[in-house]
């Protein structure tokens, strides 16, 4: 069923009785050509592009719980392509281009909103780094604008540029960046994949791999064995655990990241702001809640909740830049599990086991990557060659000395 204005009008007049489920609840078959493990944004996008762009069929997507219940439904929804390193920027720019056309492509309202992101800077060194990053973004064919103090004031008159502990000197603005509705991204890709024949199988946990002579043959699941010669794993925070079942040890640690949302307020924040003196990012959802977050909790965690010291730190940072939100009530806070890689950049690669592909290490930046990640992973699984914007996202890059250390923090996953 295609969604359009006429349809909504018709349904409104007939008591909304004509809507059908957005995707089938498929039963697992014994054999497929492709299996994608993990029903988050990345897995669903992979299945969608495999079917739609690479014209593959007999595809199953296996999700341990329900699709969209993982990080894709827990993040702060910031979408941007203001990276600097050569291995990263073309990839994230492809992603932003796909975001810009996502709703038309999926016939699904993902509430993609290019409201702009501004990264504030507070001293000369930060300004120089922002200019350098801005130039690098422009050289990669994307958009970036350096704003001075007056420019920031014009956009956000309430920001304190004078008497604060860290007065604001200016900011790096990416006007095409913004936010999207997280759940809708998962649902839209699921619906699109289903329409192209993908079996979406929920409550189906992968518990092991069938491997013979270094080749993958299938997976063991809580709903029986399912066979396929090509299997792609995109399980976000549980990468180490799942890939260990295939005997692989990864350059990844799992850490918890928290996020927060306040009660609904009148519109006060048109775009996304990140605070350069600390680590704090904030935007306002279309319902009016302020959505914000900060750093990881810093230590390994598979618990979907964080600890109080980080809550305090994030809130302190928030109030130091926006004293006016001090009286807004925080309605909810939650955590998600990030697979933090050693240089803060992701992996889309083949593994040493033939037919087994890995997509992970997205740290806390994987939501914006969803479309390109799915596209490039589908390309890799379909053609056995990396997509041209993902050639640097290799699993062995630390061994060969080709890290993509965007932050320059070295092999310290919790610092990225």
């Amino acid at each position, binding site marked *: 069923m295609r969604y359009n204005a006429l349809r909504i009008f018709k349904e409104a007049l007939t008591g909304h009785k004509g809507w059908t489920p957005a995707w089938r609840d498929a039963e697992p078959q014994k054999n497929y050509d492709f299996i994608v493990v993990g029903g988050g944004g990345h897995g669903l996008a992979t299945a969608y592009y495999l079917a739609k762009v690479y014209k593959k069929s007999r595809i199953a997507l296996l999700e341990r719980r329900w699709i969209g219940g993982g990080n894709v439904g827990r993040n702060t929804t910031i979408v941007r392509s203001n990276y600097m390193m050569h291995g990263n920027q073309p990839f994230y720019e492809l992603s932003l281009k796909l975001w810009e056309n996502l709703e038309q492509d999926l016939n699904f309202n993902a509430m993609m909103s290019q409201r702009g992101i501004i990264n504030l800077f507070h001293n000369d060194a930060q300004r120089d780094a922002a200019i350098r990053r801005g130039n690098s973004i422009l050289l990669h064919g994307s958009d970036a604008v350096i704003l001075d103090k007056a420019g920031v004031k014009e956009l956000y008159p309430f920001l304190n540029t004078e008497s604060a502990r860290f007065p604001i000197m200016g900011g790096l603005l990416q006007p095409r960046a913004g936010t999207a509705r997280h759940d809708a991204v998962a649902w839209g890709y699921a619906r699109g994949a289903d329409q192209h024949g993908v079996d979406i199988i929920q409550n189906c946990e992968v518990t092991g791999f069938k491997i013979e002579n270094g080749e993958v043959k299938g997976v063991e699941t809580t709903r029986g064995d399912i066979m396929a010669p090509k299997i792609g794993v995109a399980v976000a925070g549980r990468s180490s655990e799942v890939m260990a079942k295939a005997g692989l*040890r*990864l350059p990844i640690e799992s850490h918890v990241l928290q996020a927060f949302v306040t009660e609904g307020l009148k519109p006060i924040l048109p775009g996304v702001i990140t605070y350069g003196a600390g680590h704090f990012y904030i935007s306002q959802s279309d319902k009016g809640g302020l959505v914000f977050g900060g750093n990881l909790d810093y*230590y390994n965690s598979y618990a979907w909740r964080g600890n109080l010291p980080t809550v305090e730190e994030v809130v302190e940072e928030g109030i130091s830049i926006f004293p006016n939100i001090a009286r807004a009530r925080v309605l909810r806070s939650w955590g998600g599990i990030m697979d933090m890689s050693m240089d803060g950049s992701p992996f889309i690669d083949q593994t040493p086991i033939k037919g087994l592909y890995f997509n992970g290490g997205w740290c806390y930046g994987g939501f914006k990557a969803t479309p390109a990640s799915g596209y490039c992973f589908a390309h890799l699984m379909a053609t056995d060659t990396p997509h041209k914007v993902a050639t640097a996202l290799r699993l062995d890059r630390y061994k060969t000395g080709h890290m993509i250390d965007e932050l320059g923090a070295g092999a310290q996953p919790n610092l990225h």
Partner: protein
Amino acid sequence: MLIPHPLLGPRDAGEFTYLGDATLLDRPDWQSETAPQEFYDYVYTRENPPGVHRELWYHEYGDRNWIVVTRNVSTHEILGAELAQDVAKNKGTA
């Protein structure tokens, strides 16, 4: 989280900074034949289990000891804490 410091008793986790997997105490032998692979694993790859994990915490805002904490990373329950120097001594690596 409260970390049961072996000398000082329960201390707030906020007094500590975190380094990661306690296997970092087992530095490979640089003269071994397989040193490149061993150092690659030592620096970059991790077991990263979802259950019980032994890890290094530094009591930076306290007595500045390194502590090996045994913790269930799925529940945040702490099962024990030892001075890292004792752990290293028992292994004969101190």
